[in-house]
């Protein structure tokens, strides 16, 4: 039932997202234009804006939002901790370091790479950074074929701190223009979404999202602890690896196209647990839907609040998500028991 409502909500938000922005085009003509492109419901210029700017941006926003929320829900299930997030185990920090390296050193030391990959250089660097952290974490926390979740969490905090230090060093080295690019990217933004960016990340994000429902039963069992999950017959090691792979792919790809967008991964699953309970069979798809919806809403707001300019979306999600999360915590005091 809640899933049906969430699908309807996402559809409505998607339409709203297509219709809002610096240039005006209302919902009804967009829908008519979709079914009869030759009908002339929209001007040539509006048609172009919708198809080439807003549609890829809307799709990318939905993918990123779904990735962030699902990654958060999976990490929380894996770590048995409602505050876990790809940001916490350093995947986002690693991706940010990769991007910062490309922005600052792309003109000098890494120039050949920057020229070779062109517009893809930044996303690829971010993705590589995220993947590098995940691989390193996995190496550190796996002994004799068993991955210790506690070691992984602690190592992740240490690695995130190191990545942050290196990013700081790069910021220190950067010139004025690079500094501007850096801070804008780090705040998170969907501006500059294109079909080519969408095609670059969709093949990574979609399989990760499609794999997530297969984690649901294992994550439910893992809520009893790793030993008990294994006693229930769940091949725990396999599912831990699959979960980490899903999260690093989805997070790396998301951070690559949109920078670090905070709080979606914590707020969506938490809100849904209050609404439909913690059963991951429903929580994971619902998180994908709600994450996509919230990010599209935030993006629409970021485009209209200071139109015709736009606000980096990361500012908006943190500014709204932070207080919202605190409000949940205060209302439900005592339920989150670490």
């Amino acid at each position, binding site marked *: 039932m809640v899933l049906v409502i969430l699908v309807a909500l996402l559809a409505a938000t998607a339409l709203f997202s297509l219709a809002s922005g610096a240039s005006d085009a209302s919902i009804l003509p967009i829908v008519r234009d979709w079914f009869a492109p030759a009908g002339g419901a929209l001007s040539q210029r509006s048609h172009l804006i919708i198809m080439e700017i807003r549609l890829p941006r809307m799709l990318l926003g939905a993918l990123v939002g779904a990735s962030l929320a699902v990654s958060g829900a999976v990490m929380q299930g894996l770590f048995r901790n*409602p505050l876990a997030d790809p940001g916490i185990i350093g995947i986002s920090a690693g991706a940010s370091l990769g991007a910062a390296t490309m922005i600052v050193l792309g003109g000098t030391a890494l120039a050949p790479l920057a020229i070779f990959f062109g517009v893809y250089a930044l996303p690829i660097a971010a993705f590589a950074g995220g993947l590098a952290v995940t691989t390193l974490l996995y190496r550190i926390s796996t002994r004799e074929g068993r991955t210790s979740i506690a070691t992984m969490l602690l190592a992740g905090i240490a690695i995130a701190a190191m990545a942050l230090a290196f990013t700081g060093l790069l910021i220190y080295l950067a010139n004025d223009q690079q500094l501007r690019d850096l801070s804008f990217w780090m705040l998170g933004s969907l501006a500059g979404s294109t079909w080519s960016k969408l095609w670059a990340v969709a093949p990574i994000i979609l399989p990760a999202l499609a794999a997530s429902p297969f984690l649901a039963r294992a994550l*439910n069992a893992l809520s009893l*602890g790793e030993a008990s999950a294994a*006693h229930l017959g769940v*091949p725990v090691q396999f599912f831990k690896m699959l979960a980490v792979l899903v999260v690093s792919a989805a997070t790396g790809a998301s951070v690559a196209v949109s920078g670090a967008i905070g709080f979606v991964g914590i707020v969506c699953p938490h809100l849904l647990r209050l609404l439909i309970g913690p059963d991951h069979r429903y929580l994971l798809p619902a998180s994908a839907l709600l994450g996509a919806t919230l990010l599209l809403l935030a993006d629409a707001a970021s485009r209209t609040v200071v139109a015709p300019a736009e606000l980096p979306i990361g500012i908006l999600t943190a500014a709204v998500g932070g207080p919202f999360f605190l409000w949940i915590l205060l209302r439900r005091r005592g339920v989150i028991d670490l």
Partner: protein
Amino acid sequence: MIETTNLSVSLGRREILSSVGMTARPGEMTVIVGPNGSGKTTLMKTLSGDLAYRGRVMFNGISLSSMKPWQMAALRAVLPQATTLAFPFTVHEVVRLGLTNGRSGALPDAVARLPERALARVGLENFSGRLYQELSGGEQQRVQLARVLCQVWSPVLEGQARYLFLDEPVSSLDVKHQLLIMNVARDYARHGGGVIAVLHDLNLAAMFADRIVMMHRGKIAASGTAADVLTEETLATIFDCRLAVGFAETGVPFVLPQSAA
């Protein structure tokens, strides 16, 4: 039958279990007792498949090391000492996790009602919709027992005896519920299943065990019936505590801490 031969387990460089040879038969309750640090819990974890070991562990004639997690889960269910949950699951959702492996042994149309029946078995009718996190420690432990019962509901499945592993199942319970849990376990054994329980309470052990295995410094110090094992001599050497052993009218031995010299 569960049988270990020359079973040794090391954690780091320390050998926690050395050359343990024990058997647990279907239809019996085998109780492991021993002082703190004697290796009871390590033995239980090894039998549960959690630890690497040297030697041999056989379940109904099959080597433990050759079994996959789901094959083990079809043969035995494990009740941990205590379980906390990070998320607000309901009691019903927790108990239903016992059905994850799909080998409860109940008929297909009865499986859906199994969580309710298991809850009734442990005295928690009408707790289905309650939140697990809001229950008392003793209630949580009984919910977990209901979950474990669901996993191996039929004590014998396709001719194979199945086992309940209980690690200090009654340590957080009041006396009424201690007896309730121990009776559920004994009943499981009476219907052909096997039970291995780690107990601290020597009197409960004496009362319910068909066979007691007494551990000391990673080895089996004594095993047999309660009357064989719980003697003043073994208690003095192994627990380092001089206790007088009395006998109840049923012939079951008991010890009282008041008798300590």
